[in-house]
């Protein structure tokens, strides 16, 4: 119990005193995760929508495959990305290993299936609702996708936020491909792992509470910006 109180105190002081290191790793956490989120959404949302409206031979297999990918341990993805980006690997020439870019790549791979799966589910329900009407109006495939994404944006936002949650708390993959290098690739989660390993539980918990706080703020901000709770609009 004492550790939890110490943790809360630690979190409080870190934030109040504008601890420079805390700012640095928090900003880096947000930078990496938000970039990964944007890229993953740009891939996953059209993909999920397309899978909802287009019938093709192996569609059910593709959907099951994407759902299964959600269960892949992030550490495994980290190892695979490390092997690919290693100097002795195929993409070593790009010099991406141990940089935030590598962390972004790993996180994109991890969260795209999550976002795609939820987006697909939402779009499938909406398509069932709109199907007859949109076909009747002679829409093109592209028009249908645009309409579904536009009208289903609240659920797509939920899908994106699910991806954000997965990414902001991820530590295994980014530890491997980022290396947790001080001032370069250290983020909140890897710092927490480091401090836990050193036995400094209070600091680790403190960082953890800061992380939770940031996650809450981001969720609130996005919901406010999109005014999802406003009556009569949705």
């Amino acid at each position, binding site marked *: 119990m004492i550790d939890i109180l110490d943790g809360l105190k630690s979190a409080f002081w870190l934030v109040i005193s504008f601890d420079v290191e805390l700012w640095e790793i928090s900003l880096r956490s947000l930078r990496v995760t938000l970039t990964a989120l944007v890229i993953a959404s740009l891939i996953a949302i059209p993909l999920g929508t397309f899978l909802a409206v287009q019938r093709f031979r192996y569609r059910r297999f593709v959907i099951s495959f994407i759902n299964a990918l959600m269960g892949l341990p992030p550490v495994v993805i980290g190892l695979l990305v490390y092997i690919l980006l290693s100097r002795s690997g195929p993409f070593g020439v790009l010099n991406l290993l141990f940089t935030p870019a590598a962390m972004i790549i790993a996180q994109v791979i991890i969260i795209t299936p999550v976002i795609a799966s939820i987006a697909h589910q939402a779009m499938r329900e909406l398509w069932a609702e709109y199907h007859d*009407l949109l076909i*009747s109006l*002679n829409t093109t495939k592209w028009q249908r996708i645009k309409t579904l994404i536009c009208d289903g944006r609240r659920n797509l936002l939920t899908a994106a936020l699910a991806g954000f949650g997965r990414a902001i708390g991820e530590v295994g993959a980014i530890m491997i491909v980022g290396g947790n290098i001080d001032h370069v690739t250290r983020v909140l989660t890897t710092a927490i792992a480091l401090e836990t390993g050193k036995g400094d539980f209070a600091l680790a918990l403190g960082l953890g509470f800061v992380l939770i706080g940031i996650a809450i703020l981001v969720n609130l901000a996005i919901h406010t910006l999109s005014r999802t709770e406003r009556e009569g609009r*949705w």
Partner: protein
Amino acid sequence: MSARFPLELRQIFVRRRGKTVIGPLDLALGAHGITIILGPNGSGKTTLLRVMHGIERINGGAVQWAQDDPAQHAFVFQSPVVLRRTVAQNLAYPLTLVNAPNERVTTAVQDWLARIGLSNKAELSATRLSGGERQKLAIARALIRKPDVLFLDEPCANLDGHATREIETILREAAAAGTRLVMATHDMGQARRLAQDLVFMLNGKIHETGTAASIFDTPKTSELAAFLKGDIVV
């Protein structure tokens, strides 16, 4: 007016799950007026309409328009489908699909809002309308592109007398303005009020066709006579 008619259906049949839903049947529709497709529930009226509109796959036979331009058909479903947007946006949608210029869109939307009496609800989310309001919206949305032919599948089936009367007025105005109406109903009163031509369907086949006068005054088949009397016909 419309060179797209006459419409000819030759030896159409539709089979679903091993059962023949409609057919084989032949039908020819001319270019003018209001045609009512009459028949008890389950007689295949909906399927026939959808086949004519082109949103139902046929298993045999041919649907022949003199000159087909699918963008000039419109369809109103029995259960009104509204987009998850405002009332005004719903009305504008078919026009935005064809990239109509903004002023034309605004004028048309204002115009139709007034005609269906929803001007004060323009910015309301369409999902909050009552059943009758939704159906009026659906009809207005179907008519906003001035289609040559409007198919309606029992549009007043779930509506009260007020809404039904308002809708029938709108339909008569549309017909007077030159839109060809083809409407399915099992409501004899509505058939009497609106029909200029009638098609009587039973068990997936066409039993009789004719002008309103001839059908109502001198039915040729016993089934139609029984139906007109109000008996249950199977």
